[in-house]
Each structure stands twice: as C-alpha cells, then as structure tokens.
C-alpha cells in the first residue's frame, strides 16, 4: 500500500478586527476532501452563521440536523434554502464555539455533501449539533465564505483554518 502525508493547511486566518465574512478563495483542486475548522465568537448577542459554496446565495442548500441542548435531543431539516445554517454563536469571547466542516469530493462533478459539527458549551447551557448538508451543484468548489447574519460580526480572535486531505 502506498502511504503519503496529507491533511495540509491551505490557508488560515485569525481576525484582528470584527468581520462579517471569512473567505477562502482560489482553493486548489488538488485534494480529495476539504476540512474547515473554525473557532468562533460573536461580537454581541448571538449570531447565525452560514457556509456558502462558490458564493452561491441562492436556494440550493438543504440539511438534516441532530442536536442536543443539555436536556433533550432533537432533529430538524431545512430544504431549498439560501441559508446553510450552523448555529447561534455565543457572544462571550472566553467561551468560543468549535465548528468543523468536512466537504467530500469538493472538486468533483457531483452534487456536494458535507458533514458539520458544532460544539459549544457555556457552563450551564450549550449545544452540540451534527449536520449532513447538501449543495445542489455539480460545480467544483473553489471558494468558501463563512458568513455571519446581516448586521452581526465575528469577534476579534475568531480563527478559521482550511485543510486539504488527499487520498492515495
């Protein structure tokens, strides 16, 4: 069997000022999967966040979600949506939210499916989410935009790193 090192960082950013969108563009097509790791905080209140593929903000997204919020487990779905939703991020800078996106066969010519994990604990409250998401497009992904809802922003110190994973 062949063995080759992979799981390579493609790009990373740490916010030095509040920002609504974190963009990774010109993503090379040389990997098999992408993995986006975000440690995020909101500047105030809580914010909704979305991950857009190739800056497509049309209703081409859907997802199935499994959640636990400390007392109960639940499941929900969105269909034909323009908002590939993750979670409500906390505003407390010392209690960040960990978010991962595993995007499979991102450079291929099939519709794109990905897995999202959201883990956030606020010492008395919190959420854990697991999603499977679909972008109904056969285009290769060359850009990702991680966006906070209108009029909200990610706080200073929010980090996002994009990794590439290449199969043998």
């Amino acid at each position, binding site marked *: *069997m*062949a*063995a*080759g*090192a*992979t*799981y390579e960082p493609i790009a990373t950013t740490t916010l030095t000022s509040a920002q609504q969108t974190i963009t990774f563009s010109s993503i090379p097509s040389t990997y*098999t*999967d992408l993995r986006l790791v975000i440690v995020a905080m909101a500047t105030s209140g809580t914010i909704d966040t979305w991950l857009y593929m190739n800056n497509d903000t049309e209703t081409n997204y*859907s*997802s*199935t*979600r*499994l*959640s*636990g919020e400390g007392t109960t*487990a*639940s*499941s*929900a*779905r969105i*269909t*034909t949506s323009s908002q590939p939703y993750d979670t409500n991020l906390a505003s407390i800078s010392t209690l960040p939210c960990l978010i991962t996106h*595993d995007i*499979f*066969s991102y450079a291929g010519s*099939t*519709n794109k*499916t*990905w*897995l999202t*994990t959201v883990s956030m604990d606020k010492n008395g409250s919190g959420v854990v989410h*697991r*999603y*499977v*998401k*679909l972008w*109904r497009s056969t285009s290769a992904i060359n850009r990702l935009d991680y966006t906070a809802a209108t009029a909200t922003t990610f706080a200073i110190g929010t980090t996002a790193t994009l990794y590439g*994973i*290449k*199969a*043998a």
Partner: protein
Amino acid sequence: MLVGNNYYIPPAFESIATATGTGSSGTITFSSIPSGYKHLQIRSIATSSSSYGMIRFNSDSSSNYVSHFLYGDGSSASATGLTGLTSLYGPRADNSTYFSVGIVDILDFDSSTKYKTIRVLTGQDSNGSGLIMVNSGLWLSTSAITSITINTQSGNWATTAQFALYGIKEL
C-alpha cells in the same frame, strides 16, 4: 533545526489506500494494513442499493460486534444499541442521486491488549429527506486489525463509491 528555520514537524496524517466500488461487488476491502500508526480513519462518499456499509475486521464474521447509535431523520432524534452483531454499522450508503458521506475513526487499531472501538459520523441529505447519525462500535477482540471489509447490506457498491483509508501517527 538550523537557526532561522522552523521546527520540522513530521506529518501525522497519511493516506494509506483508496478503494472504489466496481458496480458488481458489495465488498470493499483494505488488506495488509501497515502498523506504525496509532489510529485509522476511513472517509467515504458512496451510493449503493444498501442503507449502510457494514464493517468487519480481520474477516471475523462471528457475533463479536456491538454498536450504539444516535440519529436524526429531520423530525425526531432516536437512540438504540445492538449487541451480538456480525459486523459494525459504518457509513451511510443510500441509493440516491445525492451521495452519502461518512467518517469512521478506528482507535488504537493495532493494540494486542484492547478491544477495538470505532466512532462514526455519517449522513445523507436529499433536500427533503435524509438522515444524520453518530455511533460507536466495539469489536470484541484484542487482535490487531490487519484488514477491513465494508460490505453493503445487499446489492453492490456503485462505481462512484469511494473509500479512503488514512493512518494517524503519534509521536
């Protein structure tokens, strides 16, 4: 390390092998898995005429497998546990226009003193239906894992089904 250079960090995540469905077989096999890693990870994107890929280690077809599940179908969350299985529930593999995806972590796979535990995150969404699942699995064997088969529950893996095996090192 030379002055002015960064520390060299040896790569810890390596691609070991890939396997693709043939359209005429319901089995994916990774054999002769090398030692030298601490954990394994399988990443899959697949369709088949099955619901799940069923994982078996070292061709052990006895009732030596146990699984616990937590899953959501878009309207409710459910949990269950199964014992006495002849293989472990692995990645989803729905027969759909839209692919199922999965990540299977196999921990301490070459230990000769521990039973082997896996964790799975897998799902499929079809814009109106689908399922997301997390599960744990246990193989009641202290043998080091040297081969992995992923079988459909029925039918064949599509030619578009892809499985990639990775090894994760420790220092």
